[in-house]
C-alpha cells in the first residue's frame, strides 16, 4: 500500500510555504474570464420583470405587446396568474431580445395586474403573546415551502420533527416535483408522519421553536452571585457578490443544454437544471472559468437561470444571458438571516459562568429560519433557550459564510463581555477562566488567546469600560472566539502524466478566489517533485470528474485529498515503468527537484522528462477520490478554534467608530499555501469590519421593499476603513499533523463580536445591534447619559 499521507515537515518543498496565487496574473490583467464576460455567437439579452410587491396575487399577465416588439425573440411567463408572490423582486416574466436596450423596452411593455396582499418585512422583536408552536405542515405550507425555496435540509428536518396534516398522494408529489421539489424532499414527504389537522390553526408569521433546557437554570440563576442582562443582535445583510448571480444558456441542439453560470457548485448544477427543463442531467454541460464572489449564495440553479435556458430554447437555441442587475442582486439574491436575543447570564463572583437564558428571534425570509447555536462555543451547564422564527416577505435567505455562527458569536460574546464588565473583570481573564466548558479545542483557545493578547499588547492597553477617553475620543478593546467544522467534501480528480513529461489534472471544482487552483497545483507539484508551472490544471466544467459545492470550508480538504491520492498513484505508476532503467525497485525511487532517482543513491537518476519517456506511447491516467477508505489515511480533519481581538476608536460627538487594529489567530490543520491562507483571514477580517460598521438590508415596512438595493446606500467597507491587520496562523506540532481543514468560514465569525465588544469597552455602554452606525452609537450614549 503506497503512503498517501502528507509528507512530514522536513520533506515538504511547497506545502506550508508562501506560494503566489497561480491565477493572479490573469486577474490583474483583465484576462480572467467570468460568466458575465461570456459571449456566445448571436448573444441575446435577457431581462426579468419582477414583482413590485412584497406579497401579492398575480391577477393577469399580458405579454402581447412585448412579443410584438421588433428584436424580441422570446417571452416566458415564470409565475402564472393566481400565484401568490411572497417577496418583492420575485421573477414573474422573463424575456430575451437582440440587445439590452430592446429588452428594457420590451420589459416596460409587459402588463401585470396584481392584487396586493398584506405583508411583513419587519424582524422587530415579536410582540408578547403572539406566535404559535411549530406544528405539522398543511398542504399549502408544503407548496409555499417549495415555492419559497426553503433549504432542503431545513425542510426535511421540519418534516421529520413535525410531520404533515394532509394525506400525501403521488399526484401532489408529482406536482411538487414540477415546482422544483428535490427527490430528498419528496422522500421526506412520503415518510412524514400524518397528524389530524387542528381546526382553526392559524398561520402566524411568528413560529416558536420548542424551549430547550439543560441542567437546572432556575436553581442556577437563584444561586448566581452576579447576573448580567442585555440585548444583542445582527440584522439582515446581503452577500453583494460583485459578479451578480446569473447565467448564459444555449442549446447546441434540442437535447443538449450548455450553461455558463456563476456558481459555487459546478458539478451540482446539471442535476438541478434537468427536471425543470425536461432534459437529462447527462445532457447539461456547465462551464465556469472564474466566479466573481459567492460567499454561500451561489449553490443553486435559480429560477432566473431556468428562465435563461427556457428563453434560449424558445429562441432556437441562441445563447441568452440573464445576469441580475445590482438592485435585484441585493434584493433577492442574498440575505444572511438576522438574529437578536435578550440574554441573561449568571456567574459566580470569581467569573465562573453558571447559567444562560435567552429569548431569541430573527428572520430567514418566508421559511422563518432557525435559532443560532447559542450560547456559542461556551457550553454553559444550565441553560434555557427559546426562539421565535419570523416568516417575512423579504425573499429567501441564503447561506452566508459560516451560517448562523457570526450571529451566535455576536450574541454570546456580547453577553459574556457585559458579564465581565459587571464583574469588573478583564474579559480576557473571564474567557480564560471558563475555557474548560469550550470542549475539545480548549487548549488551542488558551494558546491562541495568549498569542493574540501579545500581538494586541492587550495587557498594556486594556482599561475598564469607558476609562480610556481623551477629549471626545474613546478607545477600547474587545475579543471573541469561534469554531467551525471543516472536513473535505467529495471530490474526484483525473490525473494524467504524458510520455513527454507534461502533466494534466482535471477536477469539476471551482475556485472562488480562495486559492483552490493554487492548492491543487501545490499538492500535485509537491508529490511529483516538479514545478507548479509544469502542470496544467483544468477545473470549472462538468466535462471533468465531479467535486462537491464549495461551501462550509470543505473544498480545500476535498480537492487536496483527491489530488494527493491521484498524484501518488500516478507517480508510483511512473516509478514502476522507470525502475528497470535505474536498476532499482519501484519502492526505492523518489521524485524530487525535477528528477526521478534512487533514494539511497541519488546519482542514479533521470530527469522528469527522461523518466516520463519510459512510458513509451502510453499515458498514465489515474483517478483520485475523496473520501477513499481504501487509500488511508484520512487526509482531512474537522474542528478548529480561532481568536480575534479588535481595537477601536469612537468619536463620542459624532458616533463614528474607527477600527484601529485587528488581530486574528487561527488554526486550520495543515496549511497548504500560507500566503492564500493568510489572505482568507485578512479578507474575512475586512468583510467583518464591513458588516460590523456598515451593512444592513433596510426594508420599508409599509411598501415592503428593500430601501437600499445599491452600493451607495448598502455600504461596503472601502480601503480607507482598513486598519492594521495582524494574522497569525497556528502551525507545527498539534496542527500540521491534523490534516487539511478549510478556512472559508472560521475567520469571518468573530469580527462582529470583537468589534462590538471593543466599542462597548470604549464608550462604557453596549450598542445592542450591528452595524455600529453613528446613530446607534449616539443612541446608546444618550441612554447611558439619561440613565
Amino acid at each position, binding site marked *: 500500500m503506497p503512503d498517501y499521507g502528507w509528507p512530514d515537515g522536513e520533506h515538504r518543498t511547497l506545502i506550508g510555504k508562501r506560494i*503566489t*496565487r497561480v*491565477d*493572479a*496574473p490573469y*486577474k*490583474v*490583467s*483583465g*484576462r*480572467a474570464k*467570468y460568466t*458575465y*464576460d461570456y*459571449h456566445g455567437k448571436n*448573444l441575446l439579452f435577457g431581462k426579468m420583470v419582477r414583482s413590485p410587491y412584497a406579497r401579492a396575487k398575480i391577477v393577469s399577465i399580458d405579454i402581447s405587446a412585448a412579443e410584438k416588439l421588433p428584436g424580441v425573440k422570446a417571452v416566458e411567463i415564470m409565475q402564472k396568474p393566481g400565484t401568490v408572490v411572497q417577496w418583492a423582486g420575485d421573477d414573474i416574466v422573463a424575456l430575451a431580445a437582440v*440587445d*439590452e*436596450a430592446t429588452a428594457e423596452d420590451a420589459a416596460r411593455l409587459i402588463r401585470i395586474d396584481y392584487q396586493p396582499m398584506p405583508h411583513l418585512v419587519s424582524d422587530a422583536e415579536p410582540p408578547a403573546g403572539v406566535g404559535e408552536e411549530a406544528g405539522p405542515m398543511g398542504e399549502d405550507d408544503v407548496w409555499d415551502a417549495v415555492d419559497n425555496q426553503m433549504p432542503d435540509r431545513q425542510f426535511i428536518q421540519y418534516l421529520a420533527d413535525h410531520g404533515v396534516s394532509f394525506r400525501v398522494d403521488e399526484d401532489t408529489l408529482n406536482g411538487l416535483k414540477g415546482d422544483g421539489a428535490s427527490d430528498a424532499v419528496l422522500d421526506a414527504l412520503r415518510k412524514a408522519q400524518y397528524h389530524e389537522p387542528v381546526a382553526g390553526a392559524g398561520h402566524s408569521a411568528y413560529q416558536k421553536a420548542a424551549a430547550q433546557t439543560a441542567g437546572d437554570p432556575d436553581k442556577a440563576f437563584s444561586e448566581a452571585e452576579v447576573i448580567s442582562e442585555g440585548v444583542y443582535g445582527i440584522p439582515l445583510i446581503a452577500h453583494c*457578490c*460583485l*459578479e*451578480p448571480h446569473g447565467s448564459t444558456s444555449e442549446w447546441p441542439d434540442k437535447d443538449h443544454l450548455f450553461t455558463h453560470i456563476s456558481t459555487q457548485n459546478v458539478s451540482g448544477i446539471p442535476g438541478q437544471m434537468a427536471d425543470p427543463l425536461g432534459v437529462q442531467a447527462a445532457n447539461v454541460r456547465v462551464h465556469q472559468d*472564474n*466566479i*466573481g*464572489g*459567492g460567499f454561500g449564495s451561489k449553490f443553486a440553479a435559480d429560477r432566473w437561470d431556468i428562465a435563461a435556458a427556457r428563453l434560449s430554447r424558445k429562441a432556437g437555441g441562441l445563447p441568452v444571458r440573464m445576469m441580475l*442587475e*445590482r438592485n435585484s442582486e441585493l434584493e433577492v439574491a442574498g440575505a444572511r438571516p438576522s438574529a437578536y436575543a435578550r440574554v441573561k447570564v449568571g456567574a459566580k463572583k470569581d467569573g465562573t459562568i453558571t447559567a444562560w437564558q435567552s429569548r431569541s428571534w430573527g428572520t430567514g425570509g418566508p421559511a422563518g429560519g432557525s435559532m443560532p447555536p447559542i450560547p456559542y462555543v461556551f457550553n454553559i451547564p444550565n441553560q434555557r433557550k427559546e426562539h421565535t422564527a419570523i416568516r417575512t416577505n423579504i425573499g429567501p435567505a441564503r447561506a452566508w459564510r459560516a451560517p448562523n455562527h457570526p450571529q451566535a458569536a455576536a450574541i454570546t460574546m456580547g453577553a459574556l463581555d457585559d458579564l465581565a464588565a459587571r464583574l469588573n473583570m478583564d474579559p480576557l481573564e473571564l474567557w480564560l477562566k471558563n475555557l474548560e466548558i469550550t470542549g475539545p479545542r480548549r487548549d488551542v483557545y488558551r494558546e491562541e488567546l495568549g498569542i493574540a493578547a501579545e500581538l494586541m499588547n492587550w495587557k498594556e492597553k486594556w482599561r475598564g469600560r469607558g476609562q480610556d477617553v481623551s477629549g471626545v475620543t474613546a478607545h477600547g478593546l474587545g475579543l471573541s472566539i469561534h469554531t467551525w467544522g471543516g472536513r473535505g467534501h467529495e471530490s474526484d480528480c483525473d490525473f494524467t502524466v504524458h510520455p513527454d513529461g507534461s502533466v494534466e489534472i482535471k477536477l469539476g471544482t471551482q475556485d*472562488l*478566489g*480562495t486559492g483552490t487552483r493554487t492548492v491543487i497545483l501545490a499538492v500535485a507539484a509537491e508529490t511529483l517533485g516538479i514545478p507548479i508551472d509544469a502542470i496544467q490544471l483544468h477545473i470549472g466544467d462538468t466535462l471533468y470528474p465531479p467535486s462537491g459545492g464549495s461551501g462550509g470550508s470543505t473544498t480545500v480538504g476535498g480537492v487536496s485529498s483527491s489530488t494527493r491520492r491521484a498524484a501518488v498513484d500516478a507517480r508510483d505508476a511512473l516509478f514502476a515503468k522507470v525502475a528497470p532503467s535505474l536498476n532499482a525497485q519501484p519502492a526505492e525511487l523518489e521524485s524530487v527537484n525535477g528528477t526521478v532517482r534512487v533514494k539511497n543513491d541519488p546519482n542514479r537518476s533521470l530527469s522528469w522528462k527522461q523518466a516520463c519517456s519510459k512510458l513509451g506511447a502510453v499515458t498514465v491516467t489515474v483517478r483520485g477520490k475523496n473520501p477513499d477508505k481504501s487509500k488511508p489515511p484520512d487526509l482531512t480533519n474537522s474542528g478548529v478554534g480561532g481568536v480575534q481581538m479588535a481595537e477601536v476608536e469612537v468619536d463620542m460627538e459624532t458616533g*463614528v467608530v*474607527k477600527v484601529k487594529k485587528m488581530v486574528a489567530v487561527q488554526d486550520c490543520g495543515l496549511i497548504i499555501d500560507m500566503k*492564500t491562507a*493568510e*489572505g482568507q483571514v*485578512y*479578507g474575512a*477580517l*475586512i*468583510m467583518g469590519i*464591513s458588516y460590523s*460598521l456598515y451593512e444592513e438590508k433596510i426594508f420599508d415596512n409599509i411598501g415592503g421593499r428593500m*430601501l*437600499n*438595493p*445599491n*452600493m*451607495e*446606500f448598502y455600504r*461596503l*467597507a*472601502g*480601503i*480607507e*476603513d*482598513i486598519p492594521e*491587520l495582524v494574522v497569525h496562523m497556528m502551525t507545527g506540532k498539534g496542527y500540521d499533523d491534523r490534516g487539511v481543514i478549510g478556512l472559508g468560514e472560521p475567520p469571518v465569525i468573530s469580527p462582529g463580536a470583537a468589534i462590538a465588544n471593543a466599542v462597548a469597552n470604549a464608550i462604557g455602554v453596549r450598542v445592542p445591534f450591528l452595524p455600529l452606525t453613528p446613530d446607534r452609537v449616539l443612541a446608546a450614549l444618550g441612554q447611558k447619559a439619561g440613565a
Partner: protein
Amino acid sequence: MRDDHLPKKKPRKKAEANSGVSRRDFLKISSISAAAMPVLGTKVVHAAGTPVKVYGPGKVPIELTVNSRKYALQLEPRVTLLDALRDQLDITGAKRVCDRAECGSCTVIIDGKAVYACSLLAIEAQGKSITTVESFMDGDKLHPIQQALVNNDASQCGFCTPGFVVALKAFLDKHPNATPEQIRRGLSGNLCRCGTYHGLQLAAAELAQKGA
C-alpha cells in the same frame, strides 16, 4: 466612515434610492425622449436659443478609440461606454457591478483620467483616447503595478481587480511620488467584496517605495 469628512475625488450624487431613476437612466431616457424625431442620425434643434445636436432614436454610427485602436460601431445613443466595450468589442476587463458610479469596477482611463465607464455614454466618449486594463501588459510581461498586486496577493475572486489596477495606474501616472497613504486615498473610489484591501495596501507600499 470612509472619507465623508474629506474632499471627495468625485462628488457624490444625491439620494436616488426612491426615485428609481439614476443619473445614467436619466441620460438614457432623455436621449430616447427625442423619439418624436423619425429620422435616423443627427438632427440639430434649438434649445434655449442654442443649437443642440440630437442623436437617435435607433442606432447611430459611433467611433471609439480604445487602446489606440479605432472601432466603428452602430449603437443606440443610450448605450454606455461600459456596455459598448463589453458587449460590442468583447473588451471585458472593465466589469459591470453597480452600474451607477459607486464601486469603480468599470474604471477606464480617458484622456489620462480615471473614469467610471458605466456612467458615460459611448456616444460621449467619441474622439477621446480610452485606455483599458487590457493594454497594460508589455507582451507577456505584467506592468509593474500588476506585478505588485500579484506579489502581494491583492486579488481573490478578482472581479474588482481590473478596476483597482486601472485606478492605480491613473493615480500613479499623475502622482508618481505618492505616499502609501495618498495611494489609499486614490483608491477610495473602488470597492472590493472579498477583502483584498490588505494586499492592495501592501502593493501600494511596494509601488511607493519603487516610485513606479
